[in-house]
């Protein structure tokens, strides 16, 4: 009997999947798209948002609470991975070759600059904290793999959490300034957003790097 199920499962699953897909597709095609009221609202509010890039405005102003929780998810993942206590072999430094070291000498600073640019441009053009953080993380990994840089536990913890910390403190400081949760003062909205994004960039870079290493720093167990 189980063998029979084994046989039938693919067929059933396939059929079910196709049926489900057809249903969703039908639902999608049979209905007109929305009238774009949300888009208009977003664009009308854009001037007050403190940034020029509508997506950034949504991420860090209109729906900033989503993003706050999203940063929390990143931090959570790091704790979760550390908790798994994967005893991966230490990533030992790559053999120092002239090519590699010169690559480092050029790319290291370059990556930092690019990250900074992405972060800055995010206010008006596509870009922003996550992209910047990802690039920065690349740089950090290069340095780690080269064995040039092995930050201490305290540093990693602070770097990984500063984004969430700043974001949260900003959020709960705002009611004092404007009387609204996560509601920035009109004049300085852009400044606040930049502050949050900078901190977030650092944390994202730190977390991605730490996820790659997957070993809790300053861990004392054998």
């Amino acid at each position, binding site marked *: 009997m189980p063998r029979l199920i084994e046989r039938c499962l693919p067929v059933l699953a396939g059929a079910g999947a196709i049926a489900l897909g057809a249903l*969703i597709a039908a639902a999608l095609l049979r*209905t007109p798209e929305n009238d774009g009221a949300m888009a208009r*609202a977003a664009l009308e509010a854009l001037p007050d948002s403190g940034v020029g890039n509508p997506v950034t405005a949504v991420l860090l102003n209109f*729906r900033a609470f989503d993003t706050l929780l999203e940063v929390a998810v990143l931090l959570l993942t790091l704790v979760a991975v550390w*908790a798994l206590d994967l005893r991966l072999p230490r990533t030992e430094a790559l053999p120092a070759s002239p090519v590699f070291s010169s690559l480092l000498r050029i790319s290291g600073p370059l990556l930092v600059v690019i990250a900074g640019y992405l972060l800055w441009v995010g206010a008006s053009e596509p870009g922003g904290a996550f992209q910047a953080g990802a690039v920065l993380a690349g740089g950090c990994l290069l340095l780690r793999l080269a064995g040039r840089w092995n930050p201490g536990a305290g540093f990693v913890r602070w770097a990984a959490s500063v984004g969430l910390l700043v974001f949260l403190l900003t959020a709960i400081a705002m009611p004092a300034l404007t009387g*609204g*949760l996560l509601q920035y003062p009109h004049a300085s909205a852009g400044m606040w957003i930049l502050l949050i994004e900078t901190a977030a960039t650092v944390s994202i870079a730190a977390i991605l790097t730490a996820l790659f290493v997957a070993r809790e720093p300053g861990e004392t167990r054998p």
Partner: protein
Amino acid sequence: MTLWWSTLCVAAPLLAAVLLFIRPKWMAGIALVAVTLVLVGALGLASVLHDSGPQFIAIGGWGAPLGIGWRIDGLTVTMLLMAGIVGWPVTLYAHGYFGGAAAGRHFWPLWMLLLTALCSLFLSNDLFNWYVTLELLGLSAVALVTLSGKKAALDAAQRYLYTGLVGSLFYLMGVALIYNDYGVLDLAVLREVTEPSLALWVALGLMAFGLLVKSALFPLHFWLPAAHGSAPAPVSAILSALVVKGAFYILLRLWFDLVPATLPDAVSLILGGLGAGAIIWGSLQAIRATRLKMLVAYSTVAQLGYLALFFPLSESGQWGDAALTGLVYFMFAHGCAKGAMFLAAGNLQRAAGHDDLVSLAPTAQALPVSMFAFAIGGVSIMGLPPSGGFIAKWSLLNAAIGSGGWIWVAVMIAGGLLSAGYIFRVLSLSFSESGDEPEPGPELVPVAKSSEWASLLLASIALLLGLNALPMLDLLSIGLPRAG
């Protein structure tokens, strides 16, 4: 004040999480403060609602449709209170349970993040924000399950993770359909604009499926027993008492605000049927269980069935309110009772080093306080007076009988008796032909007094809920949602 109280509920645990991440040494102290603050915030909100009715908060000052809105009515605050009231003893317990153990270092930030997710889920009223909270909730829950580090726990955690992610993705697909159709995410706005259409039905179907998977309604419960049964005791308590309720809460909100009145009765009947299946099947599995924690976990499967009974009952016109009362009271009472049972079970397991029912009798007699806590929790689970469970059962029965739903009456009665079947299986452990002195048995690992009393405290709350239901019902009735 509303703003401050509600912010407190989310910010306190989140800040605690960050601090505990930066300085693991600070440990429980901060967590306990944070949970207390959540409780304070919830109580503050309760008083605000009492004076000035339901509240709305536009985060970022944008308001619907552009911004995310918090909606704070009786239901919200009741759930927040549940989180705080269950969370407090659990935190106290975990302090004794993990002590300085390495696992504790990770437990505290994870638990605080979970609490954050839960509180923002209860406050939120926005389809996509709910998705983010669901993920935060789900991932932290899975991570907590892995803390015991055993193979079984890891396997259970993986299954839990995959199922949870599939659930969220189904939910998100539903959200995508709705957004594609209406371009709105705020539930209050959607309530006004939606009208029955294929897209809406499919979207609701996808969301409901995803949420039912997450709230483990039979037969989608397959992931639950292993996960709840193999997690560390305080985690099991959190999962059974709070986490499953999170997804169900969203389902409830959708049911009230998004499901059109033209919903065919068949649907609610099917949901009720699944509930009935859960009650019977879960109870039978619990009766057959060989390990204490698995028994309690299957009991959760069964109890979640009662939640689904709400759907057919709420259709029954004038009795709908009684059904909702019963439902919410049930969630609350089950939270306390089941939490207490898991904590007590954890004490036994910790003391004996195992939780095989056959050889647990000496341990049970060595830990009377924990057994007492388990017993009180059990009374509430069985729906016997005096307990919150009894109030809940009374209200649900009232709705069922009033609306002539005799099938549901039969199911509830059967469920009550079956639950007695497995609960007294455990309680009878306290009575064995011990000699003149309680027999020493195998030498037991000492259990922290705080852990024993924490379980009793939580159980007593389940008991106290049964003494006077009016305060909570008054709170619940503020902005009482009605089926669409």
